[in-house]
């Protein structure tokens, strides 16, 4: 596991807000030369700490006004049925997140839809048709806020 110093933390905090900045720009912000900042970014990438980028869009402005989190319990269990369910769930374009969880549900899914009617279509024609699907609980997302985390 990689150890971070204050400079590494400052780099991570900067990149979490805006990953498009160059090593030179980041260096200037935190008082490092361009090559020094670049070396540190490279090291964080190689250690797997920096694991790519996420483009956050205004889903509503793009016509996807509804985001719903589903908690799904499988009706039947066993290794084969898990794999069938996972493969089918991941293939649905409206499903953005598929997580296997332990607790009240077996899976958590994030589904995007144009509106509530569109969501109902996805729920009925796609989600309820998934192999092995049992109880489904839906919660409509109102607001979301990402936090920087312990850096």
């Amino acid at each position, binding site marked *: 596991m990689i150890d971070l110093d204050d400079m590494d933390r400052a780099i991570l905090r900067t990149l979490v807000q805006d990953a498009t900045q160059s090593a030179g720009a980041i260096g200037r912000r935190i008082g490092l030369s361009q090559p020094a900042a670049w070396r540190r970014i490279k090291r964080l990438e190689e250690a797997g700490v920096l694991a790519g980028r996420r483009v956050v869009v205004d889903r509503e402005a793009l016509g996807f006004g509804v985001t719903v989190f589903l908690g799904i319990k499988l009706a039947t269990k066993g290794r084969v049925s898990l794999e069938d369910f996972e493969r089918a769930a991941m293939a649905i374009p409206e499903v953005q997140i598929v997580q296997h969880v332990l607790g009240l549900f077996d899976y958590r899914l994030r589904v*995007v839809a144009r509106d509530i009617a569109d969501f109902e279509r996805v729920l009925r024609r796609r989600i309820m048709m998934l192999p092995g699907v049992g109880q489904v609980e839906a919660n409509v997302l109102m607001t*979301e806020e990402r936090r920087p985390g312990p850096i």
Partner: protein
Amino acid sequence: MLDDTDRRLLRHLLADPGIPMNDLAERANVAPATAWRRVERLTEAGIIRAQEAIIDWRALGYTVEVSLRFSLDKTVPRAFDEFTAAAREVPEVLAIETFLGRVDLRLNVIARDMAHWQEIYRQRILTLPHITDIEALMLISTLKHAEALPV
């Protein structure tokens, strides 16, 4: 208003967020200068809200991730605001989401191990204000996490 070129650029950017601008231009079949200008305009208009670096917390030794679902005391008018403000003070909280449904609010929380998790849960989570119920889903694995929209 978005035209077809904007949508094409967004579709490719969302599908492959780290993509260099020249490759993005090529895939969307526009000149590189056009791609730059369009992406800049989409960012200024708030359609692209952010391009964030993704931190892999496991690479930093955080092996536990829990989705905590809360019900809050709705007889308290400022319950949501006060809970959210207090949750922001917990560094291990990665996301705060509010819902319409059976669940009021969800926190995504990470910890180094189960002992650390227990410490956070008892000292930082259970002490948050206005909680009436908590359910925990422990993450086993994330199988799909895409920001791509079926546009």
